[in-house]
């Protein structure tokens, strides 16, 4: 049930537990966006490595709303369509900062081990 099935099953990258929410926060860092925009952003920024499943995206948005890390308003998009725009809240921004540093350390540590010799 992924968005676009143009990658074969084995090549697709599964999102790790808990990563989607951080990525959503990151996608909202520069400007508010709607669900479709977020999924596009994630796909483009990852060079289509990540396929965001709506069945995961929407519940994740709901969870973020409940934690009040993001807020939502209905607005008109540049092409005149009304859409629900999500905005990062101050506490969401804080959460993004800490999560970013955590994930960076995690990725670095992973890389160190995987690339180590012997």
């Amino acid at each position, binding site marked *: 049930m*992924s968005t676009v099935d143009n990658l074969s099953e084995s090549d697709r990258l599964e999102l790790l537990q808990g990563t989607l929410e951080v990525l959503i926060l990151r996608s909202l860092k520069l400007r508010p966006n709607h669900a*479709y*925009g977020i999924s596009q952003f994630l796909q483009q920024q990852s060079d289509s490595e990540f396929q965001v499943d709506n069945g995961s995206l929407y519940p994740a948005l709901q969870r973020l709303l409940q934690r009040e890390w993001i807020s939502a308003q209905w607005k008109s998009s540049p092409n005149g369509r009304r859409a629900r725009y999500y905005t990062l809240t101050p506490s969401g921004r804080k959460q993004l900062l800490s999560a970013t540093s955590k994930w960076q350390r995690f990725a670095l540590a992973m890389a160190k081990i995987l690339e180590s010799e012997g």
Partner: protein
Amino acid sequence: MRPWWSKIKRALGTRRRLVNELQQEIEAHLQFLIDENLEQGMSPEEARIAARRAFGNQTTVRERSYQSWQFPSLELLLQDTRYAIRGILRAPLFSLIVIVTLALGIGGNAAIFSVVNAVLRHPAGVDHPQQVAVLHSYYSKFTLDIPYVSAPVEGTAASLKNMIETAALERPTSFNLLRDGVAEHVPAVRVSSTWFQVFGAQPILGRTFTTEEDQPNAAPVVVLSYGFWQRAFGGASDAIGQTLLLDGRPYRVLGVMRSDFAWPRRFEAWVPIALPPSDFSPDQFFNEFFQAVVRLRPGVSVQQLNAALSARMWGDLRRLGGAPYATNSGWSVYANPLTEFAAGSLRKPLYVLMAVVALVLLIAAANVAGLFLARSSARSKEFAIQMALGASTGRMIRQILLETLLLALVAFIAGVAAGPATGRLLLRMVPNHLAAGFTVHMGPELIAFAAAAAALTLLISGFGPAYAIVRRREPLSLREGETHSTASGGKQRLRGAFVIAEVSAAFVLLVGTGLFLESLLALQRVDLGFNPRGVMTALVAYAGEEFEKSQSRQASFVGGVVDRLAAQPGVRAAAAIEPLPFDPENIRSCSFAIAGRPAGPADPGPHSQLAFTTPGYLNVMRIPLVAGRWFTSMDNASSQPVAVIDERLAGRYWANQSPIGQHISFGCGWPPQPALVIGVVKTIRISSLEEDTSDGMRYYPFAQGSDFMATFLVRTDGAPMAMASTMNEAVTLTNASQAVASVTSLETLVSDSLGGRRLIVWMLAAFAGLALMLAMIGIYGLISYLTAQRTQEVGIRMALGAQRSSVLRLILGGALTRVAIGLGIGLTFSFVAFLLLRHEFANIETGSFASFGAATIVLLLLGALAGSIPAARAASINPVQALRRE
């Protein structure tokens, strides 16, 4: 907290909005995809289909989003609750039985707890009762333990300022209130000004008295009880400042206490005790004329106080010179909590009853568990359908627990509602002198307790069926008519265990009933040494101080009333005595001296109870004279002072000689004018059937003594209470300013002394009956179910040539095996309980053998009866039909 709160907020109010919003958002999302597809040149139709495909499963998106709002579990719960209610209503009889059983268990517990709470924890009208303690004197040498102390002892206790907030003294008195020419008796007490502070009691009107008003020559003032205020002033608030003529003296009314304040009990007026300093002098150390109460400082325990009391008392005694006497008489002072003191002889019975109702609760829970198990067998097809439709084990257990919960909830409400009412009824069954001063009411503690009881039953009774479902690993069969040739193992074993538990608990209750009943019967047969049947008693407290102090006035009044009574038709004999045997609050004893046997200064000397009486006493009481003579009307103020002793005293101090002709002093701090011992009478029980508390008795004639009250006795052939008006008449005709204070039959007084024990017997009998009934239902239900399950098996057996009698034996054996196991367990528990209770309740071993035997027989018989109906049904099975059903 925040996310949780927002979840609730969403869940409660905004669900519809959220659903709409999500739907709109999904549609907006689709629109973006459609726009994109149109740009790529698709036809509108194609674009929409492609967008939908690209979006994925909308239902999944929606449902997963809902889940993050926590709706599903709430919704499921609601759904399950609706389903549970339907399940309950579908089997109304079953549900009713469950509710009634649980309500009996919970209600019984709530009732007893409400009484325990009122009696043992919260005596009415006392603030923080656990901080209040009562001082007692104990003479180990005389085995004398009295809730009275002397004024100097109270003074010493009060000096422990770091432990005691306030201390107060009390001494009963009595007034005759003269209103419209009619004398009315007012039971009153003299108390220290600090009395009310000790109990933390506030007046609802006016104030209590001050230290200045509590001085020997202060103007007389009085604080009224609520009841007295209502009676005398009709509840008028201008009563404050008015005067009441008590014993001819004008007392200014200072205040009115709240209706629930009744310490000491059954008294209606408080006046200052106004003790002169001489009462606190060291030579008064061993004259226990007062009740003393103290309020402990917060955090100080009674044990700590007792340790400090003992140290301080002995310090004072050594300094003041009373130590040798204290050592020789084994004297000590101790405090016990007011809650314990106030509960008196109700305390132990209440603990027993608490244990009993707990047992009943367990039986009820086990029974309901058994019922549920039986029902779950009957509903196995329903469960199978649910499971086939995808219900998880967890959800099914929740479903069953919900049903149990709802039933328990109804039972809980019924139990809590009925509890205090039943508790009040229970207190009414208790003799008045035990129950006075306690009010049973609903409170958060009661509700919490009942809720705990309900939760316990819920756990026990819901556990069984839930366990049965968890155990059922094999797929459930839906096939119509499916039966197993033999009953399935685990579940029936569990049901059997519940039946066994019920039987053993019922056994314990039965044995308990037997033990207490036997002990009660034995106690009722105890030889009192007198015959209380047909004796009516009436207490008169002399009105007027000049009356109290005038020996001749008292003598002529007592003599006059007795003569008048004796002349009445229907009166066999009349007399006066003080104190009256079995009057719960009136026992007098003191040390005395025997002429010619000088005691050392530290020797406590002989000690005994004593009473004033009149020549007719032996005839009224039917107490036999053993030696010498009894009093006659010739023994009066102008003749030789005389005394009669009882056999116990004679045996103790004149073991090898005749006491007649000896001289004894009165003691009790009275002038040491010796009296001549002129006779010996039989020993009687003076206060209790349970134990012989008398350490010997001295009788003195009223005509030679002085007291502040007298109890008149009349022996009649008819109903004793019919003499009440005769009694009133005799008193008022002899002296119009005197009034009868209380009228009872002697038999009632004797019987009331067993009130606590009788309460246990009644309650135990009721609960044991209930337990038996429940156990029988349990056995019957289990055996009939098992029998139904084994229909084919029995059919096969009979087809193969088994006799009906052997089938009967087979089924009945199943029932009796469980009863026997239950009996074994019950026997062990009963025996432990018996060993524990033996030291707490006199005479309990009287009927031990009979009780254990009878309980065994009753349970075996009832077990056989409960099992025989299904057994007979099994024995009448037609093998052909039974096998055809397979």
